[in-house]
């Protein structure tokens, strides 16, 4: 047997090798990993503990105003909610479709949902799949609405608070919000409708159906 193999020409040896590997492949199973992963729960727990896993509403607002494009903003809510209002440049990705959504392991991903629960769960899923730079919007869209769209200041604010409010007022206007003086959070958000999607941010065209970046040979 060994002699026969040695007598073959190099081409025939390689062909035989390919044949054998091909034959084994029939029984070796599916090369795709599917959806199961292994994760280091201790490592994830430490990240959560250090709270380096979120961005605040103000930070995100700053990034958008500065026109940063080094991150992907994903809206995890339903299509209906997305169409009513979403943060400019956000892409609609319902949680169930997150697995199939084209994301790169090395790109910065910011997740948000209505509160913070869905985005935290999605954060865990993406981290488990090996995505390194995943962040959630702290407090979700509720916090965004309170802090950015309808920031408010008490009638008897200190000078320091007033100065901070002056700054956030500009931010708020950029996103089509309306700063409030006095009143409580509940009154404010009950009264005010969400800003129209054609806001001065400019980049709020629905990006959900956006074509994937072309790549390949």
């Amino acid at each position: 047997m060994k002699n026969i193999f040695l007598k073959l020409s190099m081409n025939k040896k390689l062909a035989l090798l390919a044949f054998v590997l091909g034959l084994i492949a029939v029984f070796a199973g599916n090369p795709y990993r599917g959806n199961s992963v292994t994760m280091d729960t201790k490592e994830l727990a430490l990240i959560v503990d250090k709270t380096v896993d979120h961005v605040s509403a103000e930070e995100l607002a700053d990034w958008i105003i500065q026109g940063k494009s080094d991150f992907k903003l994903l809206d995890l809510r339903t299509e209906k909610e997305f169409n009513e209002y979403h943060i400019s440049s956000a892409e609609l990705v319902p949680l169930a479709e997150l697995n199939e959504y084209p994301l790169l392991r090395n790109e910065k991903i910011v997740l948000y949902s209505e509160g913070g629960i869905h985005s935290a769960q999605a954060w865990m899923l993406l981290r488990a799949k090996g995505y390194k730079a995943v962040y959630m919007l702290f407090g979700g869209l509720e916090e965004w609405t309170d802090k950015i769209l309808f920031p408010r200041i008490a009638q008897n604010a200190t000078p320091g608070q007033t100065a901070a409010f002056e700054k956030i007022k500009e931010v708020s206007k950029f996103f089509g919000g309306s700063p409030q003086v006095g009143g409580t959070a509940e009154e404010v958000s009950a009264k005010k409708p969400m800003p129209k999607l054609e806001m001065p941010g400019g980049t709020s065209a629905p990006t959900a159906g956006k074509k994937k970046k072309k790549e390949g040979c």
Partner: protein
Amino acid sequence: MNAPFFKYGLFGDDVSLVVAFIIGIGFGFFLERGGFGNGRKLAAQFYFNDLTVFKVMFTAIITAMIGIYYLSVIGWMDLSLVYLNPTYIVPQTIGGLLLGFGFVIGGYCPGTSCVSAVTGKIDGMVYLLGIVVGIFIFGEIFPLVSNFYNSTPMGQITLSQLFNIPYGILVFAVVLMAIGGFAAAEWAEKKLGNKIVEP
């Protein structure tokens, strides 16, 4: 079909360009060493005089296929990170035929024309110029053909999904196809080749 290291996050955009540059140089070098910088050699396959091109390409396909398959099966590679070009069956068939005509007429495919041009062959340079002009024209008329360009989309589909057969069996089938192809190529070179005298 990009290597998955970029998507694993092992390096960023800048380094990936350097990596692509190095791989490109390597690719060109081995094409040239294989004799693929010569239009006569490439065209000889259409006369069954020399089927090296066919054999090299098919060897590359099954080597890569077996390598990727086993690396994924043993878990060293995540196949879902390897980019698949989406299939648009009709426009891609027409495009393939156009490329084939160009290959037969000009004696090069796009990659080998670059190899030929940098080794100083005038026909390669003319061919490369033709590619650039073609790209320019295509870009200019793209709005007119974009509907056709995007027609009959089938998504990022593989043969395994299309025929609903397991990947392992497909790997074996392609290997058998390749071995059969090599045998047929050798036979054709002996029987059918050399009937047409090279210019």
